[in-house]
Each structure stands twice: as C-alpha cells, then as structure tokens.
C-alpha cells in the first residue's frame, strides 16, 4: 500500500514533501496568530481545491457550485449541534451523507441526460443557488439572520465538540489536506484514476475502450462532494457562524477553486500550492490597502492572477515549479 503510493515518485519529491509536511506541522509554534489564521484559511482552500480538482482535473467534469457541498456539510452539522447537541464527529456522517446525496442527484441529472461541459457547470450553479435560497427561507436553519454555534471560552480544548483555539482547527485541516493528497494519489494510480483520465481526455474513445461513463463520473462526483462536505463541517465549527448568502453564492464557489486553477488543474500538488500562494497574497493586499478603502481589491487581484495564469502558465504554477525543482515533469 505504501509502496504503491510512493512508486514512481522521485526521491527528491518525497524528501521535499516530507520537509514541507514537517514545516507545516511545526508552523503554529513559530508564527503569529494572524499568520496562523492565514495558513488555516489557505489549507481550507487547498483541501476544497483538492476535492474539486478530483472532479475537473481527474475526471473532466466542471463544477462551479462546490460551495453547495460546503454549505450542506456546514449547515447539517451545525444544525444537529445547535438543535440537538449532536457532536460533530457524528454530525459529519450525516453531513457527508447529505452532501454526497446532493452530488449524486446533480451527477445523475447531468450524466444521465448527457449535459456536458459548461451546461453541467450551470446545473451545479443552479443547485447551489436554489439551495441557498431554501436555507435563506428556513427559520430552523437561521434564515438570512444566520446560524450561530455556541462558543465556549476559547482557552480549553473540547475535542468531542470541536471547541477550542485556532491551533486545533489548524491541525485538523492540515490532517484533512494531507489525507486528501494521499487519497487522491492513491485514486489516481488505480483503475478508477486511469478511467477518469480517459473520460477527461476523450469521452467517446473511453466508452469505446470499455469505460462505463455514467458509473465512473458518478463515483467522481460522489467522492468530490463527500470530501467537500467534510470541509463544510470543519468550516462551520471554525467560523461558528453561517449565512446562506455568503455560504452558497457562486462567487464563493469560484473563490474555492481559484487555488486549484492557479496551482494546476489535474495535478496533485497544484491545489495545495495554489491556495498557499493566492490566499496569503490576497490577505497581504487587503492588509496593505486597508487604509485606502478600495472595495473588492482582493477580488480584482485574484481575477488578475487567473488572467496571468491563463496567459503565461496555462497548465498552472505547479507543473512549472516541479520542472524547476527537477522533479519528474509528470510527478504532479
């Protein structure tokens, strides 16, 4: 199992990855609270970017509504916690079940009726938007006034109820991001991964070579929406407040995937690298221009980054960086 994961990876890549993991694991001991909060949000985008990349980068299915799965995961676990006192470790099961179910419904509609490319993306947007509207009108979920999780004194760590300082959430999202990386590497080097890539590269040719398109696309959506649902649970308990408008908006979906797009769609490390570049840069810019009162400067900057990437590094930053570091060009 371990050998299968590391097989074909150059030693340099493994060593660098290990170094990166160690640096990330020790980071909370050396950085300020502010830097830690930026790292936390970066890792969150890295994790969701990885989950989203599994659908587009591996299986070729474009979703522009991944905020939906975050939202379902977040609202499910938060509602169970606030209304029934059900702890997030149980809540996550319900959250993942619901977000996966929603992913499968969208997948079924899209793939069964051969809705492809941008039209499939529109379908994902539509589901995210109307779910947002439904939550907006649900008093039980707090409606537009928002859903708030009870906050205890932040000093103590309550692992069962996920109440605690930012460091707790940092390590949680770090473990999740690492786990997603390992999972994706494993999936990509399996029959599933090869079938996904075949579908991504040429759907008709894949089908003629014996790939059951519907089944394998459904598996991709199911895994992607499940992982994103887990991110939603983390999100709810980290922020302690949820608003339908900001949770389900298409802008949020786009924000979630920018890191993966900049880092390199279809690569394994791209979503992590992209999120670790974009989020801190965006935060830095916000901090630098805070006195100037320029609305939307971060969004403008991110837009600029995407245009620059499309123009100069259309396959993303990671393949280029991997080349510079003399890692195998296809090491992803």
């Amino acid at each position, binding site marked *: 199992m371990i050998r299968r994961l590391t097989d074909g990876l150059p030693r340099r890549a493994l060593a660098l990855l290990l170094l990166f993991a160690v640096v990330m694991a020790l980071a909370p001991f050396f950085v300020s609270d502010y830097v830690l909060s930026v790292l936390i949000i970066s890792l969150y985008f890295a994790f969701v970017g990885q989950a989203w990349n599994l659908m587009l980068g591996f299986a070729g299915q474009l979703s522009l509504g991944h905020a939906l799965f975050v939202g379902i995961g977040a609202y499910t676990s938060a509602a169970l916690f606030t209304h029934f006192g059900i702890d997030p470790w149980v809540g996550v099961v319900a959250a993942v079940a619901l977000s996966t179910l929603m992913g499968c419904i969208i997948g079924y509609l899209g793939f069964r009726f051969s809705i492809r490319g941008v039209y499939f993306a529109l379908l994902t947007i539509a589901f995210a938007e109307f779910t947002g509207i439904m939550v907006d009108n649900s008093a039980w979920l707090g409606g537009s006034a928002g859903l708030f999780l009870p906050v205890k004194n932040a000093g103590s760590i309550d692992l069962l109820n996920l109440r605690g300082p930012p460091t707790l959430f940092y390590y949680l999202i770090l473990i999740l991001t690492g786990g997603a990386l390992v999972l994706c590497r494993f999936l990509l080097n399996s*029959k599933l991964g*090869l079938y996904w890539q075949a579908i*991504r*590269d040429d759907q008709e*040719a*894949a*089908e003629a*070579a014996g*790939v*059951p398109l519907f089944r394998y696309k459904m598996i991709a959506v199911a895994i992607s929406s499940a992982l994103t649902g887990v991110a939603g649970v983390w999100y709810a308990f980290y922020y302690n407040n949820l608003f339908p408008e900001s949770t389900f908006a298409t802008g949020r979906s786009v924000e979630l995937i920018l890191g993966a797009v900049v880092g390199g769609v279809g690569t394994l490390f791209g979503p992590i690298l992209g999120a670790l570049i974009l989020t801190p840069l965006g935060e830095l810019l916000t901090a630098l221009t805070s006195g100037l009162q320029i609305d939307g400067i971060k969004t403008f900057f991110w837009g600029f980054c995407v245009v620059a990437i499309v123009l100069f590094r259309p396959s993303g930053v990671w393949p280029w960086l991997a080349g510079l570091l003399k890692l195998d060009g296809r090491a992803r």
Partner: protein
Amino acid sequence: MTAAASRSAALKVEGLTRRFSGLTAVDNVSFEVPPGAIHALIGPNGAGKTTTFNMIAGALKPTAGEVLLDGRSLVGMRPDQICRAGVGRTFQVVRPFGQISVAENVAVGALSWTDDLAEARRHALAMLELLGLADKRNALPGSITLPDRKRLEVARALATKPKLLLLDEVMAGLRPTETDRMVATFRRLNEETGVTIVLIEHVMRAVMALSHHVVVLNYGKVIAQGTPAEVTRNPDVLACYLGVEELS
C-alpha cells in the same frame, strides 16, 4: 461454445439502416463475417462505411436493422458494453487520451477485462511490442508521429481482447513499407488469435493483401460483395469507385 453458435457468423449485420433527417446514410445493409475471417468494407467517401461501424460499435443507434455478435444482438447496448462483449474499434480520426502516456492509453483498454492495474499494464506493454511501439511507451500521444498514433489506436482496441476488431482506415497516411508491416501484423494476429477483423480501407494494397472478402458500399447500399478478385472485376464497382484506378 455450442455447435449451433460455432456454425453461426461471428458478425451478422441484417437490414442495417440509419437515416439522418431525410438522408439515408446507411440503407438496408446486410453482410455476414464468419469467425476468424478478415472482411473489408470499401466504397467512396460518404458511402456509409463509418456510419455502419458506429452502429455496430453502439456509438449510433440504427434506425432499423440488427447487429448480431456470435448470434447475440448488440442493438441497444452501450458502446462500453459492446466493447466488453468483444468488439474492439479504432477511430478514423485518431482519438488518443492526450494527457496520459502511450502505455496508459493502452492499459485503459486492458482494464475492460481486468481490475488489476499491474496486469493491465503488462498486457498493454505486450500490445505495444506487437505493434512496434514499446519504445514510445512513456511518451505522450501528442509527441509521437501520426503513423504511431494510428498504431496506438490499434493497440488500445486490441488490448480489450476483442473477438471482433473494427479497423477504420488505420493504414491511411502510412508509407507503403509501413502499410506492409501493418498488414503483416494483422495477418499474424488473425492467424495466432483467430480474431475476426472488419476493416474500412481506401488503401487497396492493404485490402487486396489482407481481406478474404470485400463488401462494397455506395450511397449507403451494398452494391457488390465477394472475393477481392471478384469485386474488382465487378462493372458496378469499377464504375462507381475503382473505375479510374489501376489495380496491381
């Protein structure tokens, strides 16, 4: 295999018809291919050859008619099911998986009968060796020559272990020596594995050298069929298609 099945044709096409809003691309086409035979499907451009292939392989639904593989109907099955039932096909315009290596392209085909990726990769390598592509196994399809991509197309189809192989103009664009090599490969494959082959081909050198039987289509209809020698003497065929070509 039962006695009845062994006597029946490997592929039987009966009254196959496809209309595209007013245009009948394939019109009541029938032919039979015995097990282990090599048949050629020829005819001028637009005669309906590729449309016929698409219907056999399930990429297009026939308007009417029947396709039987070893006596079992393929009509209504999905392309991947037809592949698993034993039909391997190539595309006239090559359609490799562009972002995975040549070897992985072929391994996708092998995964239709095995879940073991290592076994699929081993089989893929064997197919690549058979077609003289083994040294290109780590290349991306975009970086190899068109003749090599044509071979890749064949290797991927072969990797699915087909009983029936549909080859759509795999020799177009090859030099005569390359054509001869490809012909030799198919002949050896046919003798060693007994795979039934139907090929669409414009390269008459290959048709004459390879096929036991030729079906000629024109305007969607079968206008002649028989041995290569018979077909090339047929005045209808000469008139519509071969009239100007000097056959060697």
